[in-house]
Every structure is written in C-alpha cells, then in structure tokens.
C-alpha cells in the first residue's frame, strides 16, 4: 500500500512539487537564517577566537567584551605575572581610531596593540606578508575583511594611512575572523598602539595569560581574580560573554527569530494547503480503499509515507540549498568563515517533522472521517 500511496502522490506532479517546494523553502529559510544568526552571534567572540594562544583574559572588573572594555593601569600586568600558575602574561590594547586614506576617505577602525616581544595577540595566520613586518617603523597589519572594505580590488601593501593624525603603513594582511560589525582592524605593536591611540592615563585593555597547565585555566582565572582584584575569564567564558552581549543588546535574535518563525508558518501554510488539496482530490479513492478493506491504520501509514517522502526530498533540497548558499558566498567578506553548525540541520529537521506532522494530521482527519459508505452516494 505504501507503493500505491507514493504513486498517488507523485502521480499528481503539480501538488507533489508544490509540497516539495513548500518543505524545501521552509527548510532553506530556517536553516539559512539560523546559520547566519549563529555565525553572526559567534562574531561577538571573534576578538577572543583570533587570539588562540591566550588561555585566560584579564581585564577591569567592569569590562564585558573585547570591544566593551575599560582600560587598566599598566601595573595590572605585573600583578598578573606574579600569580602562581601563570606561564606568561602580555599586554593587549584594543581601541577605536579614525583613519584617513590617501583618497581622503574617513574610516573608523579598531587598533589592536600586541605584545612587542612575542607578538601574542595577532591572528594565527597571515594572508600576505609576515608578522615580522611589525618590527619596521609605523607598521600595521590589516585584517583581510577590512582590506576588502578599505581597498576593494587592490593590494593594500605599502599603503600609507593617516591614523589619528599619525603615519601608518600597511605591511601585511592577517587572516582574521571579522568582528560583529566587520570593522576594519589594524594590528600593531603595543608600544606603537600607545602612540596611535589618544592619550589617557590608563590604556591597557587586557592582559593575555598563558597557563602553565591549560587544562586548569578555570582555576587559574579564579586565582588571578582572588590575587589581583581584576576580572579574569577563560577563553571560552569570555567568548561566551561576547555572544551574550550581542544577544542582550541587539535586536538580532528577535529579527532572526521572526524570520525563522515565518519560515515555519510559510511551510505550514504551503504544505498544509497543498496537502489538503491533494487529500480532497483523492478522497473518493481513499473512500474506495476503505470500503474495499484497507484499515485506518494502513491509511495512516499511506499518508505518513507520502508526508515522509515529501519531507525527505524537501528537507534534502533545503539543506543543500543552504550549503550552496554558504559555499557561493564563502568568498564574500561578510560571510567569511561561515559554517553550518550540526545542530541547525537537526533543528530544521524537527521543524519540518512538525510541519508534516501537523499538516499530515489535518489532512488525515478528513480521510479517517470519510465513511466507506460515502462511495455509494
């Protein structure tokens, strides 16, 4: 009977493709929007992810994220270095600045000053050039996404910038995860960054810490807090705070939530309507089957098979569409590093299953209510 059910469905090409389209569209909308949402949220932690070598981030107790930080006195670095279990500790500065290009354009940038001696604080990989270029005078390294924004279609190497009224020369391109706002990021040495950033009494944003035993980073962060009175968080905790900050302070979750809900509603509407039309068009055949001796249990299996087939094909197409979308835009800086977390296809699958269960149940009700005797009327 399953074979008959499938043939009944595929035989009506218009409705079959309508159902598949409905599920595929819903899956695409839900999967793609959730993927963008999660990846955008993760950008709230990009500042942490870009510094992969730091086990613990130490900051002023009021600092919240890499971008919302209150500067500490430089003595904080020595305090942290004195805590048992700290293998190394380096200064890290993050500040906003304005850049004037040679064309006269003004661009807001983030200046990140990394430790002069070790260069800890730089992204792990370079797209062009070497980290050693920072030893040259007035050197800065630009992030790759910032490069495409400031110098579209041209190489920025050797370009001179007016950075807060001071000269800066781009000598390298870093392979970095862009920030939530895709701000242009310029990396330079800590000592150089102090020159670029307007002078205030305290300018040390963070102290990056390497633990003697990275597995005990959490215990070390607690000890640092206890010993220094500063706020210390493990890499994972601080990354999570960056994500939470975006969730709590932007309309992003609501907006994406609305789109995902719309995907679900559109799916229910398209699939529900088409499924109902399909069942209505075949109600006499279902009635005849019931009269002949097909049980309600078998009818349920038939409708479930029809829903399952539509779901399988539609869901597959929807997920493939999302993969295609992410792949197609992978070279676009906006979507750099985007990936589909494994949980998202599962969430989409649950949504599709719900859509099919709901619409299938509604359609099935009319079949089950059909009396076999109706075929004689």
């Amino acid at each position: 009977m399953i074979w008959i059910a499938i043939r009944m469905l595929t035989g009506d090409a218009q409705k079959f493709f309508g159902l598949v389209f409905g599920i595929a569209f819903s899956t695409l909308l839900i999967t793609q929007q959730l993927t963008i949402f999660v990846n955008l949220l993760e950008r709230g932690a990009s500042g942490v992810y870009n510094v992969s070598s730091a086990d613990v981030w130490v900051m002023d107790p009021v600092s919240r994220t890499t971008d919302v930080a209150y500067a500490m006195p430089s003595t904080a670095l020595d305090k942290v270095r004195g805590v048992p279990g700290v293998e190394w500790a380096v200064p890290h500065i993050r500040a906003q600045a304005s850049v004037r290009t040679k064309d006269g354009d003004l661009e807001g940038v983030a200046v990140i000053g990394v430790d002069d001696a070790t260069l800890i604080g730089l992204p792990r990989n370079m797209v062009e050039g070497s980290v050693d270029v920072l030893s040259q005078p007035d050197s800065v390294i630009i992030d790759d996404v910032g490069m495409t924004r400031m110098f579209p279609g041209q190489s920025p190497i050797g370009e001179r910038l007016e950075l807060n009224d001071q000269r800066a020369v781009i000598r390298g391109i870093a392979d970095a995860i862009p920030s939530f706002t895709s701000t242009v990021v310029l990396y330079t040495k800590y000592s150089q960054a102090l020159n670029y950033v307007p002078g205030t009494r305290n300018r040390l944003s963070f102290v990056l810490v390497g633990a003697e035993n990275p597995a005990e980073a959490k215990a070390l962060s607690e000890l640092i807090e206890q010993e220094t009175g500063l706020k210390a968080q493990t890499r994972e905790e601080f990354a999570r705070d960056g994500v939470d900050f975006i969730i709590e302070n932007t309309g992003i979750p609501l907006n994406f939530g609305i789109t995902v809900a719309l995907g679900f509603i559109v799916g229910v509407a398209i699939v529900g309507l088409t499924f109902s039309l399909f069942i209505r068009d075949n109600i006499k055949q279902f009635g005849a089957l019931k009269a002949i001796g097909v049980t309600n249990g078998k009818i349920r299996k038939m409708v479930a098979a029809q829903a399952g087939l539509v779901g399988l094909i539609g869901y597959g197409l929807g997920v493939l569409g999302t993969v295609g979308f992410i792949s197609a835009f992978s070279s676009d800086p906006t979507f750099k590093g985007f990936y589909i977390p494994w949980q998202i296809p599962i969430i989409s699958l649950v949504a599709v299953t719900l859509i099919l269960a709901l619409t299938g149940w509604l359609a099935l009700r009319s079949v089950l209510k059909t009396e076999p005797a109706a075929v004689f009327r």
Partner: protein
Amino acid sequence: MSGPAISTRGVTRDFKAGQQTITVLHGIDLDVRAGELTFLVGESGSGKTTLISIMCGILWPTEGEVEVFGTDIYDLSDDALVDFRLQNIGFIFQQYNLIPSIDAASNAAVPLIAQGMDRHEAREKAVAMLEKLNIGDQAAKLPNQLSGGQQQRVAIARALVHEPRLVVCDEPTAALDAASGRRVMDLLREVAVAEDRACIIVTHDNRIFDMADRILVLEDGKVTHDGKHMPEDH
C-alpha cells in the same frame, strides 16, 4: 452451498437530520442466494444504497442482524470487519474510483496488495483477470488513457481479482447506452456469478431488468416485491 449468502433480520436504519430522526429502512428480512444475479431496485430515496451498504459491512444498522456467509458481520470487531470485507467482498462503484496515477493492472491488483501479497505477484494475477475481461492489452495504461467502458472493466477486475464470495455493484450501467449496458451485464453474469458467489446489483435502469435472476424492489425502506420479474405496476 447450504444457507443463504446474505441474511438480514430486522434491519432498521435511522439517520439524524437536525432534531429529526428519519428511518430509512424498516425491519428488513431478506435472504440473498449465491449463484444468482440479484437486483436491488428502487426509486431514489427508497433506501437501496443504505441497504446495500449495510449488507456489505460498510454501514452499521441501527437494529437487526446481518449474516454474510454465516458470519454475523456486525458482531465482528472493527478491524475484523474491515478484514472480512477485504477477504470476502468485491466492490464495483458507479464512478469506478480508480486511482488515476497507477496503471490498470495495478488498480486491479489493489485488493491483493491490501491483503499483503507481493506487488509483482498481485500485478500478474491482475493482468490475468484483465485478460479474462478482454482488456489485457490495456494493462499498462493509466485510467485516463482508457475509455469509460474499459475503466469499468478495470473496476470489475479489481472487484474479482481476489476471488470474493460476494460482489456488490452500484449502478453499473447508469452511464452507458443500452447496448453497452447489456454487454456489461453479460460480462458480469459470465465472470461474477458463480455457484459459491453472490452478486448484488443496485440499479434503477429498467433496460436491464430482464437480465436479473431475482429482483428485490424497495419502497420507502421496505421490500415490496421479490421475484424473477418486475411487478407490472413499475
């Protein structure tokens, strides 16, 4: 065959229409014998569709008992009754109700597939039945590629393929001209009537009354005539 194929005793059927209760059948006592072409005749609203639905186990009587080949069918559980229909009754519907997206052979094979037979084996049996009905060469065609007469033969094949003991036909000649209608009746007599099989035809087509072995006339929910021929006042 000992005993009647179908036996109804005191069958009554009421329908609710708003606040009113309408009694469509009034205590029908009836025996239908195997090996006969039995016509159930009556005007619209006489209760013949209700009676045939009750006799083949798809509509519960309000009162009374119905035995089909010795089984009190309304004493069976729901699932057992559905299975009884699947094993013992073949249906020919007025509008055929063929599944449009599967070919003639698969349509004819539906009862066997529903019984759990392998689809290919069921199809082979269905093709053999279609050949018996002289449309074996149409087995691979979809219903919409067949003429009305051919579709009806497919419906007949579907009713007989699982060798049921009771065949129920609803207005089989209603949409046909006189000659075609008689050909269908000849065919039904040839393939559906057997010593161990009962065949009931619901009709009001007076062009084929002479082909019946027995005519039961229903008026206002009561059997008013039972004989080989129609009463003269009809």
